[in-house]
């Protein structure tokens, strides 16, 4: 039951670049979220690190390749590995995204949007049930950031996720930054989105920075959380009753201490009144990528050693 899941406080993504500091200093962070795919196939150091982290901190597994919305068959090998990892590190919960990553055996490594139709709802609901049965735990699904809307869609995302949660018992991960990004790009109201969102099903929230390109916003996860997103978080915090909150910082990742300081800014927004939507601030245009994944690839060269013989 998702109602039994704990409130973990303010957490950080477990990132390769922070391993040394975490293992040597065991910093006082409330909890960690690990990207499942970064650890589930690992026979090397990442697996050893996540075991140690799981012994000391509450941990959550967050996936990017479940592809719950794909019309390809569910990947049972993937699910078995995910289950093995979950059995090993005993996460508070396992999450992924309302998206698909590929069809016809391919994987784009992007979180691609779903057409929001009755057909999609029935399709995803059936797969969520299968995944929950296999993992023997509720699945927690996140609203993705999006840049397109399908003309065939017949419902809004909050309505889709509410129906999905009611039909399957799954929980929801409310990414506040994604709400802002998707609504800005679609020209819709993020406050109205939150008002319609089934906040009683929210187990966790995400915060992240984004890049404003003038005409649109890219979900880059490479900078501090924007003031307008913090204001939206204030509203989301109140509506979810203080769901576990996590900062994602995945591009140009600063020091662990800077990431920790950034997520702790959330404490300033856990009360007070919502000041209403702010105009989104533009940032310089750059080579911006939505949902960056480069941070998932370890910098192997840095630790390679050449011996003399």
């Amino acid at each position, binding site marked *: 039951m998702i109602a039994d899941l704990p409130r973990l406080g303010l957490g950080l993504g477990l990132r390769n670049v922070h391993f040394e500091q975490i293992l040597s200093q065991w910093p006082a962070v409330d909890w960690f979220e690990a990207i499942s795919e970064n650890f589930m196939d690992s*026979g090397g150091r990442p697996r050893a690190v996540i075991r140690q982290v799981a012994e000391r901190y509450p941990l959550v597994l967050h996936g990017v390749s479940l592809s719950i919305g794909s019309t390809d068959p569910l990947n049972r090998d*993937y699910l078995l590995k995910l289950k093995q990892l979950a059995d090993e590190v005993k996460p508070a919960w396992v999450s992924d995204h309302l998206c698909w990553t590929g069809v016809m055996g391919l994987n784009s490594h992007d979180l691609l949007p779903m057409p929001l139709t009755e057909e999609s709802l029935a399709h995803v609901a059936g797969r969520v049930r299968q995944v929950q049965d296999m993992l023997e735990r509720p699945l927690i699904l996140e609203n993705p950031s999006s*840049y397109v809307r399908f003309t*065939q869609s017949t419902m809004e995302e909050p309505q889709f996720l509410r129906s999905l949660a009611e039909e399957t018992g799954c929980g929801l991960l409310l990414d506040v930054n994604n709400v802002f990004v998707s609504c800005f790009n679609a020209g819709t109201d993020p406050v109205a989105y939150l008002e319609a969102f089934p906040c009683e099903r929210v187990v966790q929230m995400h915060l992240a920075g984004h890049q404003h390109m003038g005409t649109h916003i890219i979900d880059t996860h490479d900078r501090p959380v924007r003031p307008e997103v913090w204001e939206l978080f204030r509203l989301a915090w109140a509506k979810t009753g203080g769901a576990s909150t996590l900062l994602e910082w995945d591009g140009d990742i600063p020091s662990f201490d800077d990431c920790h300081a950034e997520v702790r800014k959330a404490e300033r927004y856990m009360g007070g009144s919502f000041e209403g939507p702010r105009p989104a601030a533009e940032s310089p245009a750059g080579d911006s*990528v939505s949902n960056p994944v480069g941070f998932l690839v370890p910098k*192997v060269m840095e630790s*390679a050693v050449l*011996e003399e013989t």
Partner: protein
Amino acid sequence: MSPTLEATQRWMQEALVFPLRVAPEDVQERLASSAQLTGADGLAIYQRGYFLRITACMREQFPALCHALGEPLFNDFVAGYIQDHPPESHTLYDLGRRFPAFLEESRPDRDDPPEARETWIDFMIDLASFERAVFSLFDAPGWEGRPFADAATPPDRLRLQPAFALGAYRYPVAAYYHAVRQKQPAPLPPAQPCFVALVRTDYVTRTIPITEAEHRLLTAIAGGATATLRDPIQQRWLDWGFFIDEPPPALLEGPSRTGGRVV
């Protein structure tokens, strides 16, 4: 009538992998426009993101090759690679698996006799193979936390540990790779046979230059042969953690869990 979910996903994936094949009227029909973004603008964000995301990961997996080619040319090769071999696995670690073979298959002088081929392409292919081996060993199953063989281990119980690989190359790619790693000058080297053993202990991957004869010996051991290590250098292999102490395969109930690979 609305397209099915399956048809929509196939269309969008095709649009990502082969952006030039997308018909503008299809985009207009399938994707809604907002005041901020037309459907085509939104699709272009996904198309551009797909390429940038994969190339960024490939640069992390092949940093020395990227250094050798320069980033623009490296990115061009990756663009061709992911058109021919779009990613299939859920793990990004698999992205570069077919890259060395792609470079070999797509070389423009592939049909020329060997003596007429461009040598720098041979170097790039060898470097890509070496980098793939190093990258793979980083997260391969290993032997950390368990005892290794030592000088007292009987020869017939010496087995190569799982996180071990052998490589044979036409160019000194290991020296080039480590020169790039140490930010030292790394000119393209002339051809010179290069034999290495790669081994991981305590989660550190080491490159050990070896001779051709040593490569032959270790290849034989990887194939199940028994070898007595008398030479001082070969004794150092024990110190580097090449071997574990395991009964001969015939005495095991199942297939051996160990044994290095030859790449």
